[in-house]
């Protein structure tokens, strides 16, 4: 089997906030990689560090430790201006809240073409920019006449699509989608998810899809990592994760997914995750282990034995 190309590699990434004396560790020695062309899901609750990881990759947040490699090159810490420009063009981000992620005082035209004003794109004429904007808008299913309007004239779903058009215009290879549908109505989520899938097929994009809702992630992701309080606790192919969820936190997340099936819901038992159920101590330390091919879990040796029995 040919070796798939790893587009993004995160090794022992640590991100801390706060002062040196009272640091708060948002991301604690996280490691994973993303293959080219896949959609990688990162699922966790608020405060778990998932957004911080996304922002660290796109260089909005400085990192405290570890490495982030993009296409083989290290992109965290101090990098050359040329590499910085490359990263800016090849990695893009879609934000969570369509109400605050667009510049209210600028027309959609400017918002979508904003990236084209950065260095590296200054050679474009106004005409060329306009064409790119029109194309980006129609790629996301919006009418070209929307370019002359302001964001507040649009609904949440449309605004999110404008945000997607904005990142598309840069022709990136890798898009970090930071909870792109959490703030949308359930019926609008489908539009945006379909759009993201379609764009991936057409342009061979790679996605890091950050979410707190496993049901959505299952639909769109190839592999999923579950993160809890700054540590990744389980990582597997999406179907495998749903078929054999091992870590108690993953199981709790799964049991919380609302199902549109009244009979099933009434008979459902809600699992609540209690971190103390692991009984970790200085001697009983969890490590990152591969329990099945491609299925990793953070567990101590005792727990590994238990999980093996369950399978």
């Amino acid at each position, binding site marked *: 089997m040919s070796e798939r190309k790893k587009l993004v590699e995160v090794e022992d990434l640590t991100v801390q906030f706060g002062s040196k004396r009272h640091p708060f560790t948002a991301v604690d020695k996280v490691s994973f990689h993303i293959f080219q062309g896949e959609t990688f899901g990162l699922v966790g609750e608020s405060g778990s560090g998932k957004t911080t990881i996304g922002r660290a990759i796109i260089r909005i947040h400085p990192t405290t430790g570890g490495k982030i490699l993009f296409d083989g090159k290290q992109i965290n810490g101090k990098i050359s201006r040329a590499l910085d420009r490359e990263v800016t063009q090849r990695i893009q981000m879609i934000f969570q809240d369509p109400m605050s992620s667009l510049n209210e005082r600028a027309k959609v035209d400017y918002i979508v073409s904003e990236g084209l004003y950065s260095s590296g794109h200054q050679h474009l004429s106004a005409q060329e920019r306009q064409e790119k904007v029109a194309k980006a808008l129609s790629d996301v299913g919006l009418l070209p006449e929307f370019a002359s309007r302001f964001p507040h004239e649009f609904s949440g779903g449309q605004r999110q699509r404008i945000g997607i058009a904005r990142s598309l215009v840069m022709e990136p290879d890798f898009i970090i989608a930071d909870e792109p549908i959490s703030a949308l109505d359930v019926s609008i989520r489908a*539009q945006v998810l379909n759009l993201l899938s379609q764009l991936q097929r057409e342009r061979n994009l790679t996605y890091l899809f950050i979410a707190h809702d496993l049901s959505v992630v299952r*639909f769109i992701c190839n592999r999923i990592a579950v993160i809890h309080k700054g540590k990744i606790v389980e990582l597997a192919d999406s*179907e495998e994760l749903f078929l054999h969820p091992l870590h108690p936190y993953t199981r709790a997340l799964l049991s919380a997914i609302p199902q*549109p099936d009244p009979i099933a819901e009434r008979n459902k038992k809600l699992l609540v995750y209690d971190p103390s159920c692991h009984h970790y101590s200085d001697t009983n330390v969890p490590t990152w282990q591969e329990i099945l091919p491609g299925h990793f879990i953070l567990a101590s040796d005792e727990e590994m034995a238990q999980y093996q029995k369950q399978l």
Partner: protein
Amino acid sequence: MEQTKNVILSIQDLDVKFTLRSQVLHAIRGVSLDVYQGESLAIVGESGSGKSVFVKCMMGLLDANGYIDGGKILYNGQDLTKYKTDKDWLKIRGKEIAMVFQDPMTSLNPLKTIGKQLQEAVELHQGLHGQAAKKAVLEVLSDVGIDDPERRYKQYPHEFSGGMRQRVVIAIAIACRPKILICDEPTTALDVTIQAQILELIKAMQKKYNLTTIYITHDLGVVANVADRIAVMYAGDIVEVGSCDEVFYDPKHPYTWALLSSLPQLGVKGEDLYAIQGTPPNLFYEVHGDAFAPRNPKALKIDFVEKPPFFEVSPTHKARTWLLDPRAPKVEPPEHIRLLREKGVKIHV
């Protein structure tokens, strides 16, 4: 769940309008709905469907530029549309009808301790004072699942997480001992695990205090867990009403099909999710015929011209669509909805 057929709240032909920048927005277009005592009713709709406006009318919380242009809200023999002053509404708010809002961060006073806020509600609505009030507060705090109530009593809202804050908001609402509890998207701002816990909590509270609950949400998945009856709203009007099982397993209105189909839980990997095209209509404009028609690929010509009346499917289930008219062509709901009926949805182990 058995239903006592007492109607506790009856809304009849309600019309609500807003004046916005010298134009009139017709937000609620002639809605009628009965709420039965002891039941759990869910009102489901997209943003802009009017569901929040609808319940705000029941407590007199309409924005200053909104007004009721027709219809009645009957509660306890009174017509609530006649209530104009705060003095009138004080008879209803809290005591009879209490509300839990979406955003727990802004629902609590950041400058007062949780205990103090709860105590105010208890003193006002249960008539207790001093030590008796404090005891009631501690009781209700542990009722809603907050550990160590003694310590939490003295804490401020910012020391609580989002889920816990929502529990406190629910506690305040319960402390009023209302007959009807309205929950306006109580879990939308919360993570999915906390969401599930809060819904369980509301269900437990409903049972314990014999409440009637009205849920407002845009998420049908959430509703399956908690609702006895479901009303689907679109563009200021109710398009389908039925029991929970009926709406999920045998929906009749194309909008309900669309809502159900667009849930990712029902999606098939590798295929596109069913997405409803376009956006809801602008209610500044008059709506001709069925409001959902422009977005409905299976619309009939008459949908654009004449507003469909309610067609009864069963004594408890009716839908406002021309597809139920005997003259209409037979249209089957999409495949995954039929499969839901037959196989159910199994997501986890």
